């Protein structure tokens, strides 16, 4: 299968120029006051982590539900796009677009934190990986919802829960279940890399991010059929 969906997502994103600019401008404008306001690094990294994680997950789940509701997803799947190609190529394109659109915001955050180019590069890589995870979570959430409102709610709750389990809001006690969850969480690396732009140190959770980045697409590839049937609303009568 050629990268038809990947190419389609880019063509649509570039054709919707206003939305592209807004997606770039809004996170940038949200980051600017934090980056230039002398916020403590610990607080600033929390704000950035929440913003970037929710941006990716929302940006995936809601369009998936919208396209399922409009029927275009069903047309693509019936028209020859395989379920796994539809979900994975879409997530890959979404992650690349998210990374691109968040780059100005990340650059401002790095400038505000006085990060070295190497730290910025590491954080950009982690951000792209996190966007990949966020875009893979989107279809999973979308498959369990019946409307845009439900998708928004489930995405917000799910992402915040994952962020919490990643130790973004509170560092868990060593040896606790919370610490175990944190070690395995996909969003820990994002938080720690953002923190390390101000307070250089080792970035934890990169291994977990990589593992999720491989595991989640495999799960989606296996479940692609049921997920897309749910999205299409194929109903036995």
């Amino acid at each position, binding site marked *: 299968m050629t990268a038809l969906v990947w190419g389609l997502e880019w063509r649509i994103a570039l054709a*919707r120029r206003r939305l592209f600019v807004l997606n770039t401008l809004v996170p940038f404008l949200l980051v600017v006051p934090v980056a230039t306001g002398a916020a403590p690094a610990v607080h600033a990294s929390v704000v950035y982590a929440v913003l970037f994680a929710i941006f990716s997950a929302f940006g995936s789940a809601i369009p998936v539900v919208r396209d399922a509701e409009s*029927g275009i997803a069903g047309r693509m799947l019936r028209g020859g796009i395989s379920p796994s190609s539809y979900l994975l190529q879409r997530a890959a394109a979404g992650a690349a677009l998210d990374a691109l659109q968040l780059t100005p915001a990340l650059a401002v955050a790095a400038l505000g934190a006085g990060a070295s180019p190497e730290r910025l590069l590491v954080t950009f890589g982690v951000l792209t990986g996190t966007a990949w995870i966020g875009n893979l979570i989107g279809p999973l959430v979308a498959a369990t919802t019946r409307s845009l409102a439900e998708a928004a709610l489930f995405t917000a709750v799910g992402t915040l829960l994952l962020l919490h389990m990643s130790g973004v809001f509170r560092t868990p006690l060593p040896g606790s279940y919370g610490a175990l969850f944190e070690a395995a969480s996909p969003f820990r690396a994002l938080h720690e890399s953002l923190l390390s732009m101000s307070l250089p140190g080792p970035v934890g959770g990169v291994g977990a991010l990589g593992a999720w980045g491989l595991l989640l697409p495999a799960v989606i590839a296996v479940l692609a059929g049921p997920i897309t049937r749910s999205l299409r609303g*194929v109903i036995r009568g």
Partner: protein
Amino acid sequence: MATAGVLDASEIGRTAGMVQAAGLRYAYRSGAPVLHDVDLEVRVGEIVALVGPNGAGKSTLLRILAGDLVPGAGTLELPARRSAAGRVMLGYAAEEGAHFESLSGLQNALFFARAAGLGRAEARAAVAEYIEALGLTAEGQQRVSDYSFGARRKLLLVEALAHRPALTLLDEPFAGLDQASRVALINILRLQAVNRGTVVVASHDLVLLPELADRIVFMHEGRVAASGRVAELLASVGRTTRFEFDLDRRPEGLEGRLRAGIRVVSDGDPLVLEVNRGQGALAEACGALVAAGAVVRSVKVRDADLAEVFRRATGSEFEP
């Protein structure tokens, strides 16, 4: 129009039935049954029209054939999803279909042609050919969000047909089309059938369907009410013409006062008489009524057309 790319019988993997459905039932979640034990066989290279009023179950049947719905009971045999050559075997245009609104019609059609397995150059050629044939050339480069209803309908048809599917399912294909596009569509579908493409359309259009369909399947309240070739169906209503009379005065014992050859089909209001078809049939029926003492206010001719076939098969008027 080019014929290259039309799948042959070996790719279809079956030579007799392209679609074989038996005892199909479907009910929506609300519980209301939509299809009751529907049987349908469509042969390779055949054009079949599903005809019936709203709610007859035509679109539901097409959606089942397209794989959008799964029947609650019955058996269904369809061609493989893809041919050995990797082509998508199905082309389906629902009555309404979503598009990528921010892209042009050409980009939309190219995407679906490529998804169906056509190479880049082949997709371009096929899409250009169908866009021109259906009169969409002027709008081809415009964003779909700027399209009229008719242009959207044409684009749906281009997307369903450009990969020359083995089985084409079209729901109300003539809706929103101008006369030239209707004729072009009929020609495209006839050519497709000549090249062993199979077509199932759902439509209300009893004027155009006889020009297109090899066989007509009348559906009514989720059941197949009648089916056959157009000539067979017309022959089934006999060599008679029916007239509906509104009478200002109705003499007593009318039936007994009409001469042989004129039959009362319904003695209600309106009065329906059946007379052997011919030039003088109307005069004969009117004359017989007047002679019997009736005063005729108005008369409707119900010739042996497809609407009459439907009416006789179902007892209901065909209301498109």
